[in-house]
């Protein structure tokens, strides 16, 4: 280093003690500014030997400082004048790197020479940090402004690059389980080329730092990385970015990073992390918004937003294409104009605009829509807009209507006139409920060997033209379905090898109980679904019920007709008996009398006897005919049933039998008898016949006992018509007429109630009395029977409906 006066290196100026100081120290000539001496620390700082350094001009190692020599001279002058002067200075070291140094000049002028000593401190990093800290708010703002993770990563690497002396800085972000480099400094790009490792979580020191969440300082990268070539990077600092990634900083020297580096970098990573968090949140929000948007646009719904005038301000949803609109297409139109011909939509829109939430299913253009209009209110409580959602419920509606039609068909079927009418109606319903299809009803009723189509829909008759016969034999699938009794779908009917209805490819086979089978067919494959099957199964169930009912009714009708016929025959017979049988009888008795009158004197005793027999026979015949007449008239000429006091009736009967009872020296006792619902005169006849019967058969001085008891059912075994106990709650009375006669053998117990079965040899018995009783009891729906053991007397029981407590008369 040459001085202005060209003085050579004059030797050491600094005391030895300064040589040992770690503070770089330099001695200047206070007048010339020349460097007179430097200590070893100064040599280290500048990278020059003391000899070299002392030969240099200030401007030579401060090329970046304008007019360095002049400014340096000024500073030294000021220090010499005032004793001390401090300032920052920039130097360029021997290796060409620049450093910021803080220079403290102190005047050391003594009597010998004007001297200024410079104490130099390298503040490069310090100043850099200071600058970085000053810039941090700006970095933070940049981070917050960044919109993507990548942008954030790049802001962070830039900021790191500007503040730390290193050879490398990079931000890795977690992507699909790997820490992938999102941004790195240009230096790093240069040495890593395209071989940027993307460690997994926990892999290597980068992965470890991320997994642990703690900063990692790697003093010697080559050791940590198993001597892998790490280029200019020798040490590293890894600071996790929360859950997002890792910031890696590489230093050129081993053990370069200390706690202060960690502290500073942490500041940066916190900001980065916060920025990434925010972006994530925004991403999620956006994602949600996007999803909602997607949903709205693709949902099979229609969304409307109406302003207060009913103008559509927004329309979305794929459902719009159901009415031939694209999303947004309807915007700007008034809903009232769009639906001018659908008053229901206008009405509910109006209601919603008035502040009411409305939900209604509306039919428009052959389709059904479930509309919900929801008013949205502003802070003042006024309707601000109306949000509407509509979805197509045509399908549901269709199913609903099918079921409605089915329930109508249940009514239709219940109104059917007969079996064939019911079947026709069911075929008709099946055709309508399933939309289209060829419907047929098959039955084996007439020919048990095969199912024959008896009723077919119009479409079926068109298809059936030319078919040889419409039958299914045992063993074919239709027959099998009929036998199995389950409604089944055959969706590949053709494959089942049925030739009679070959054109049909899909069928539903719905057995109708034992009656037959309902089939619906279509010409396309897989035409039916479970719903169709269900509908037809329901229909066939309804038809079955209807057919059962008709069958039952027909059987009932037949037995009723049978009964009427037999009653008619009986009536006929009764007439014959009353007229035609009497005629010859009268001839016999009249002419026997006439014979007696006119020729009686000429006849002997024996002839008289014969004539008496003839007269007697005719008389008995007359009685039998009378009895038969009465018997036949029990049903046709009976009175209405009324509440009858059985005890009063019995007493009347007994009075009419007074003569008979007295003659037989009989005793008749009667317990209390309740009221019954009966034909009064027929009840009297019952008592009369039974008491007469008892007196006649009970031998000498018979004793007859009449009693009654309330029971729950009319039949002798306590049931109604052989079934369970009475369910109607109807009460009955069981009467008993018991005698102490010889009794009746059990073999006769049923026989005695048959007409003309006489049980006594007495000539005045016609064999009609007990049959008459049976017939009267039958008319009252009761039962009559006898209990008797030989020599133990006989007890005749019969039941009659009890009179209802306050029943004064009714026509049962």
């Amino acid at each position: 280093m040459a001085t202005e006066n060209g003085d050579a290196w004059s030797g050491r100026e600094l005391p030895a003690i300064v040589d040992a100081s770690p503070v770089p120290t330099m001695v200047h000539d206070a007048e010339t500014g020349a460097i007179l001496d430097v200590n070893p620390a100064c040599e280290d700082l500048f990278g020059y030997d003391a000899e070299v350094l002392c030969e240099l001009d200030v401007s030579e190692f401060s090329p970046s400082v304008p007019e360095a020599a002049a400014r340096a001279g000024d500073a030294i002058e000021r220090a010499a004048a005032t004793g001390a002067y401090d300032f920052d200075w920039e130097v360029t070291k021997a290796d060409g790197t620049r450093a910021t140094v803080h220079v403290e000049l102190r005047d050391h002028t003594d009597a010998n020479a004007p001297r200024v000593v410079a104490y130099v401190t390298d503040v490069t990093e310090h100043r850099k940090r200071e600058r970085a800290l000053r810039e941090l708010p700006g970095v933070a703002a940049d981070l917050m402004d960044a919109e993507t993770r990548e942008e954030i990563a790049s802001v962070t690497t830039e900021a790191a690059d500007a503040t730390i002396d290193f050879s490398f800085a990079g931000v890795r972000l977690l992507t699909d389980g790997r820490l992938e480099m999102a941004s790195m400094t240009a230096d790093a790009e240069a040495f890593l080329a395209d071989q940027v490792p993307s460690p997994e979580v926990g892999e290597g020191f980068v992965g470890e730092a991320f997994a642990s969440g703690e900063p990692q300082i790697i003093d010697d990268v080559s050791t940590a990385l198993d001597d892998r070539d790490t280029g200019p990077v020798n040490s590293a600092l890894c600071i996790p970015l929360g859950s997002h990634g890792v910031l890696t900083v590489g230093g050129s020297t081993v053990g370069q990073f200390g706690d202060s580096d960690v502290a500073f970098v942490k500041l940066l990573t916190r900001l980065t992390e916060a920025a990434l968090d925010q972006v994530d949140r925004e991403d999620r929000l956006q994602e949600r918004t996007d999803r909602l948007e997607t949903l709205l646009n693709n949902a099979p719904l229609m969304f409307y937003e109406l302003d207060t005038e009913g103008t559509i301000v927004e329309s979305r949803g794929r459902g719009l294409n159901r009415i031939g609109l694209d999303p947004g297409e309807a915007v700007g139109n008034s809903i009232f104009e769009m639906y001018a011909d659908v008053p229901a939509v206008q009405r509910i829109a109006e209601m919603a605009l008035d502040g009411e939430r409305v939900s209604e299913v509306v039919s428009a253009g052959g389709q059904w829509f479930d509309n919900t209009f929801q008013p949205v209110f502003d802070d003042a409580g006024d309707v601000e807009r109306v949000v509407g959602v509509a979805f197509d419920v045509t399908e549901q509606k269709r199913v609903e209507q099918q079921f409605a039609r089915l329930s109508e068909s249940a009514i239709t079927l219940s109104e059917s006139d007969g079996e064939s009418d019911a079947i026709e109606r069911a075929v008709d319903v099946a055709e309508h409920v399933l939309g289209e299809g060829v419907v047929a009803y098959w039955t084996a009723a007439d020919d048990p060997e095969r199912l024959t189509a008896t009723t077919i829909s119009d479409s079926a008759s068109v298809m059936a033209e030319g078919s040889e016969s419409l039958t299914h034999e045992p063993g074919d699938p239709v027959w099998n379905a009929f036998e199995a009794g389950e409604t089944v779908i055959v969706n590949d009917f053709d494959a089942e090898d049925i030739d009679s209805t070959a054109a049909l490819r899909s069928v539903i086979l719905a057995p109708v109980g034992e009656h037959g089978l309902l089939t619906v067919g279509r010409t396309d494959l897989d035409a039916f679904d479970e719903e169709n099957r269900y509908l037809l199964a329901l229909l066939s169930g309804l038809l079955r019920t209807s057919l059962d009912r008709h069958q039952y009714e027909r059987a009932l009708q037949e037995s009723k007709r049978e009964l009427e016929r037999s009653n008619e025959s009986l009536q006929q017979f009764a007439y014959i008996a009353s007229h035609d049988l009497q005629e010859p009888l009268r001839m016999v008795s009249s002419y026997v009398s006439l014979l007696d009158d006119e020729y009686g004197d000429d006849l002997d005793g024996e002839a008289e006897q014969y004539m008496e027999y003839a007269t007697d026979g005719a008389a008995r015949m007359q009685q039998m005919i009378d009895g038969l007449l009465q018997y036949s008239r029990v049903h046709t000429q009976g009175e209405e049933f009324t509440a009858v006091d059985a005890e009063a009736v019995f007493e009347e009967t007994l009075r009419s039998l007074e003569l008979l009872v007295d003659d037989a020296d009989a005793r008749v006792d009667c317990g209390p008898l309740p009221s019954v619902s009966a034909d009064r005169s027929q009840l009297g006849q019952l008592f009369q016949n039974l008491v007469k019967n008892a007196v006649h058969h009970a031998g000498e001085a018979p004793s007859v006992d009449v009693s009654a008891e309330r029971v729950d059912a009319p039949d002798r075994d306590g049931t109604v018509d052989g079934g369970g106990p009475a369910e109607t709650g109807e009460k009955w009375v069981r009467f008993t007429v018991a005698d102490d006669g010889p009794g009746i053998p059990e073999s006769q117990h049923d026989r005695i109630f048959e007409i003309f079965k006489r049980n006594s040899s007495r000539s005045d018995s016609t064999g009609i009395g007990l049959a008459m009783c049976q017939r009267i009891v039958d008319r009252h729906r009761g039962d009559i029977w006898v209990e008797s053991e030989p020599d133990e007397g006989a007890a005749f029981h019969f039941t009659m409906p009890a009179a209802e407590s306050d029943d004064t008369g009714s026509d049962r």
Partner: protein
Amino acid sequence: MTETNQGEPVEILLAEDNPGDVTLTKKALEQGNIINNLHVVNDGVEAMRFLRQEDEYEEKSRPDLVLLDLNMPKMDGREVLESIKTDDDLKRIPIVVMTSSEAEEDIVQSYDRHANAYLTKPIDYDGFLDIVRSIEEFWLTVVKMPPE
């Protein structure tokens, strides 16, 4: 018993297909006190021809009383009754239905067709005589008929 006012025989038409009953009726009337001319026809068609004085009955006078059996061949008593009672010329002739039927419907139907009396033929001969005598007494002496 008294005779009729004019001393003229009473004209009686018996419509009856049963010869037994014809004989019984004849015998009963013979034993009665009223002079009568009994005309007998055996079916409804004959009865109507007699009443309308057709062909061989042209000379016959109109009967004062008709005894009508219900069950006859060709045209039964019910139809005869209806024809008489709807015929302005004949409807005033008293008709006594005599039959063996006790059937209620026969009785009702007969009165519905304006029969003047309905009697059931008794089973025994004495009863039959009583009935015929009662008819004589009531219809031929007690009852006043409009002049011809």
